[in-house]
C-alpha cells in the first residue's frame, strides 16, 4: 500500500465550522494527451480565470476547486476537490509510466480530456483510462489494448468519469455536427457525460449553462460515491480485469 496517512504539519488554522481533516479528500484525476489543454482546463475550473501562459507540465500539477455539494438545498456542504493534472503521453517510456502510477492511488473520479481538433487524442483516452484504472495489474506500465470491447465494464465502473472536449471554438461550423456525433459515441462508450468547450473562454462554464450543470452533477456524483455510498466491496479499479479489453472504435 503506497498511500500514507497525511497529517497536516504546516500549521493549518482551524476555522470555525471548517475543519480540514485529512480524511476530507476528494481526488479527481485529469487525464489526456500532451497539449489538449488539461492545464488550461484545471486553471479555469479552479481559479475561474483563463490561464495566460500555458507551459508543458512536468510530473503532476494539482489545483483545488471549491465545490458546493447539493447547492441550494438545505444539505449544502462545501468540499475541496483536488484536481490532479498528470502530464505526459500514452506512449511515454515505461519508467515514466511507472512513476506516473504513483499519482493514481485512491482516485475518486476521472476527467478525460481530449482535443476536438485531434482525433488521436480521443482514441488515446481508452488507453489513458486503462492506465489509470488498471494500475495495480500492470506494474511495468504495458497497456494491453486489443480484443473485444466490453461496455459492461464501464457501466459498473465505480469511478465516475467525465469527458471534456477542448478547442471547440477551433472547429469550423460545418464540421461541428460530425464532431458532436463522434463525441456522443465516446461518451456512450465511457458511460460518461460530455462537455465540449474552449478553455480560453469562461462563458462555456458560466453559471446556469448546461455545461455548468453537468459539471456540478459530476462533482456531486464523485462526492456521493466517496462519502455516501461507502461499500467495502467497491474497490477502485475493475474487479475482473481479465475480461477487460478494447476493440477498435466505432469510427476511425
Amino acid at each position: 500500500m503506497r498511500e500514507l496517512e497525511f497529517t497536516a504539519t504546516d500549521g493549518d488554522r482551524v476555522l470555525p465550522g471548517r475543519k480540514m481533516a485529512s480524511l476530507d479528500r476528494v481526488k479527481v484525476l485529469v487525464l489526456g494527451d500532451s497539449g489538449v489543454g488539461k492545464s488550461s482546463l484545471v486553471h479555469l475550473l479552479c481559479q475561474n480565470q483563463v490561464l495566460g501562459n500555458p507551459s508543458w507540465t512536468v510530473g503532476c500539477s494539482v489545483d483545488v476547486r471549491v465545490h458546493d455539494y447539493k447547492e441550494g438545498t438545505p444539505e449544502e456542504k462545501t468540499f475541496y476537490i483536488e484536481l490532479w493534472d498528470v502530464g505526459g503521453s500514452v506512449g511515454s517510456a515505461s519508467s515514466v509510466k511507472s512513476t506516473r502510477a504513483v499519482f493514481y492511488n485512491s482516485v475518486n473520479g476521472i476527467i478525460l480530456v481530449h482535443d476536438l481538433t485531434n482525433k488521436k487524442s480521443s482514441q488515446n483516452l481508452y488507453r489513458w483510462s486503462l492506465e489509470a484504472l488498471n494500475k495495480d495489474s500492470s506494474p511495468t506500465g504495458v497497456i494491453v489494448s486489443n480484443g473485444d470491447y466490453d461496455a459492461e465494464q464501464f457501466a459498473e465502473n465505480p469511478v465516475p468519469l467525465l469527458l471534456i472536449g477542448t478547442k471547440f471554438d477551433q472547429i469550423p461550423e460545418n464540421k461541428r455536427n460530425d464532431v458532436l456525433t463522434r463525441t456522443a459515441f465516446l461518451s456512450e462508450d465511457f458511460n460518461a457525460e460530455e462537455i465540449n468547450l474552449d478553455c480560453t473562454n469562461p462563458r462555456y462554464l458560466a453559471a446556469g449553462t448546461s455545461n455548468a450543470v453537468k459539471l456540478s452533477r459530476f462533482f456531486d456524483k464523485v462526492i456521493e460515491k466517496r462519502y455516501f455510498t461507502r461499500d467495502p466491496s467497491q474497490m477502485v479499479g475493475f474487479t475482473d480485469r481479465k475480461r477487460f479489453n478494447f476493440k477498435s472504435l466505432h469510427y476511425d
Partner: protein
Amino acid sequence: MFTSQVLFFGFGWLFFMRQLFKDYEVRQYVVQVVFSVTFAFSCTMFELIIFEILGALSSSSRYFHWKLNLYVILLVLIFVVPFYIGYFVVSNIRLLQRQKLLFACVVWFTFMYFFWKLGDPFPILSPKHGILSIEQLISRVGVIGVTLMALLSGFGAVNLYMPLCINSDILALERRLLQTMDMIVSKKKRIAMTRRQMYQRGEDQNKQTGFWGMIKSVTSSSTGSENLSLIQQEVDALEELSRQLFLETVDLQATKERIEYSKTFQGKYFNFLGYFFSIYCVWKIFMATINIVFDRVGKTDPVTRGIEITVNYLGIQFDVKFWSQHISFILVGIIIVTSIRGLLITLTKFFYAISSSKSSNVIVLVLAQIMGMYFVSSVLLMRMSMPLEYRSIVTEVLGELQFNFYHRWFDVIFLVSALSSILFLYLAHKQAPEKHMTL
C-alpha cells in the same frame, strides 16, 4: 586520408544529433560544427596510430599528417573551443548582453593566463625551447588531459556496479513526491479558502458604507492578500520541488529497468563484460600502487604482460605485440566512454536546474573540450602501452617531453580518483539506510 576525416566528421555530427540533442532543439550550428570537428580530428589521431602500427602509408606522409592533425587539434582546443565557451556563457548572463564579444575575449584571456600558469609547478619546461613552440602547448594540454582522463577512468572503473539498494531508493523518492503533492494540496486549499472568505467579506463590505467601512475593507483585504502571496510563493517552491522529485524518480525507474534488463541473456553478456572490465581496472589500480610505492615507471602495460604470461603458459603461437596493442586501446577506450556517459548524465541533471535550452550549448562545448584533451593526452600515454618500435614516431612528432613524468602523474591521479570514488560510494550507501529510518 581525407575521406576518412570527412567520414569521422559525419559520424560526429550524427552522434551529436541522435544522442546528445535528442530532446532539445539545436539553435546554433556553430556548436555542432565545432563538436564534429573536434571529434573528427581526435578520431583521425587514433587512426594514425593504427596506421603506424600496421605500416599503412609511407612514413613521410604519416609524419606530415601527424603534424597537421596536431596543429589543428591544438588550434581548436586552445583557441576555438574556450572562446566559444566564454561566448555562450557570457550570452547567458543577461547583464552583459551588449558587449558579448568583448567579454568573451576577456574570459578567453583569463583562460590563457591560467593555462600558462599551469605549467609552472610541473617539470616540463625545457630551457632550450621558446615560448610559443608546440611543445609548450602540448605539454600543458597534456597535463590537463591526463588529469581528466585519470579522474574519469578511475571514477568509471569503480562505478561499473549499479547501486544495489535501488528499490528502496525508488520507494523513498515516491513517498517524498506524494508528501510534497499533499503539502501543495493543503496550501492550495488554504488559498482557496482565504480567497473565498475575502470574496464573501467583500460582499458584506459592499453593504457597509462610510469611512470606517472603507478603512476596514482596505486593512482586512491587504493582510489577506499578503498572506496569499506568501502562501503562493511557498506553493511555487513546492511545485518546483515536486517536478524535480518526479524527474529523479523517473531516472531511478529507468535505472531499475536497466538492471532488470541485465537479467536477460543479452544483459548477462554485458554484465560479463562489466565484470571483466572491473577486474582489469582493479589490476590497473594495483599496478599503479606498485609503481608509486616502488618508484618505478611502467615499461610494459598489463595487457602485454598478461598475454605474455598466457602465451608462455599455454605455448600458443601468438603475436603478442600486435594484439596487445589493440586490446589495450579498446579496453581503455571503453572504460573512458562509460565514464564519460556517466559524466554526461550527471552534467545534464545538474544543468537542468539552470534553463536547459540555453546551457546545452555550453555543455556540448565543454564536452568537446574534454574529449579533445582526452584524445591528445591518450596519445601521450599510449607511448607507454606501445611496443618500442612504434614509440619512435610519437617521440619525434611531439618533441622532447618528459614522458616519465606523465606516466607517474597518471598513476597518481588514477589511484586517487579510484579510491575517492570507492569511498564516496561507500558513504552514499551508508547514508541511504539511515535516511529511510528517519522518514
